[in-house]
């Protein structure tokens, strides 16, 4: 990990990758991980707590599949004046269905993903955003085909 003050031992790295890819969903998962790594259960728990404390791990839990849940989602891009960027971003972030919201270096400077239970709900939210932010330009970019979605970063 080159750009971080955290030093991970080889066991830390193995555990880190295990946690992402092969978390055992069983009654005593940390004991299972401990057995794999040949360390104690307490040590596994301590290491995971450490990963969380230093901000490497956000949480351990399910990653939901929006499409399988019947939700509608799309990527959107807006062009807003630089001096209004922060306010616009904050407004967009306020919607629970907005999962990602980024500033990018382009005329289209605000990019966000919106998930909604159906198209009507999505359209209502988008109408609201357009009305309140009045972007100079606006793009709706739903996915046509998904080749990959995997936010796993092995170390």
């Amino acid at each position, binding site marked *: 990990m*080159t*750009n971080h003050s955290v030093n991970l031992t080889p066991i830390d790295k193995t555990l880190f990758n295990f*946690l*992402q890819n*092969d978390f055992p969903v*069983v*009654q*005593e998962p*940390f004991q299972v991980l401990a057995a794999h790594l040949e360390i104690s*259960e307490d040590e596994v*728990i301590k290491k*995971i707590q450490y990963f969380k404390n*230093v*901000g*490497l*791990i*956000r*949480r*351990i*839990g*399910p*990653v*939901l*599949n929006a499409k*399988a*849940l019947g*939700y509608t989602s799309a*990527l959107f*891009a807006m062009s807003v004046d630089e001096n209004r960027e922060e306010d616009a*971003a*904050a407004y*967009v*972030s306020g919607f*629970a*269905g907005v*999962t*990602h*919201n*980024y*500033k*990018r*270096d382009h005329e*289209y400077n605000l*990019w*966000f993903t919106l998930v909604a*239970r159906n198209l009507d709900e999505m359209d209502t939210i988008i109408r609201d955003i357009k009305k309140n932010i009045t972007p100079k330009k606006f*793009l709706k*970019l739903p*996915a*046509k*085909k*998904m*080749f*990959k*979605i*995997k*936010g*796993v*970063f092995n*170390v």
Partner: protein
Amino acid sequence: MSDSADNMIQEIQGDLPLTRRPFQEFARHLGVTETELCGKINALKEHGLIRRYGAVLRHRDAGFQYNVMAVFNVPDGLVDDIGERLAAKSYISHCYERDRCDDWPYNLYAMIHARDEGEGESFMKECQTIVGNFPCNILKSLKEYKKTSLTILKGNND
């Protein structure tokens, strides 16, 4: 999705406690045994409602400081092949085909993650070789305003 699956997901969709039997409380709230709960979670994984169960990263803090969205305009007949080859790269987390727009004529999108600019640029070069000599644009992520996991959506009337 059944009500019981919805209830279960709402119960477990946050963060797993770091205890010896971390599913115990969830199971108690749901009125099932831990083994039953784990079985249900694994079943939802198999059916694809849950993509993955495990650690969700703060990838920027995990050292991946250079994150770009690369977009390409490739002929429709080549999208599938190029998309699959890009998706095979470990440094690409997301790869999608989207429709082109009038003033944004790109149909293939890839999110590239690297530890630093040097590494990022070498990944980008590799992608350009895979894609071939077609229009490309590279948008660096300058600021992350929000990054949350999807949770079960509830309306105002729920």
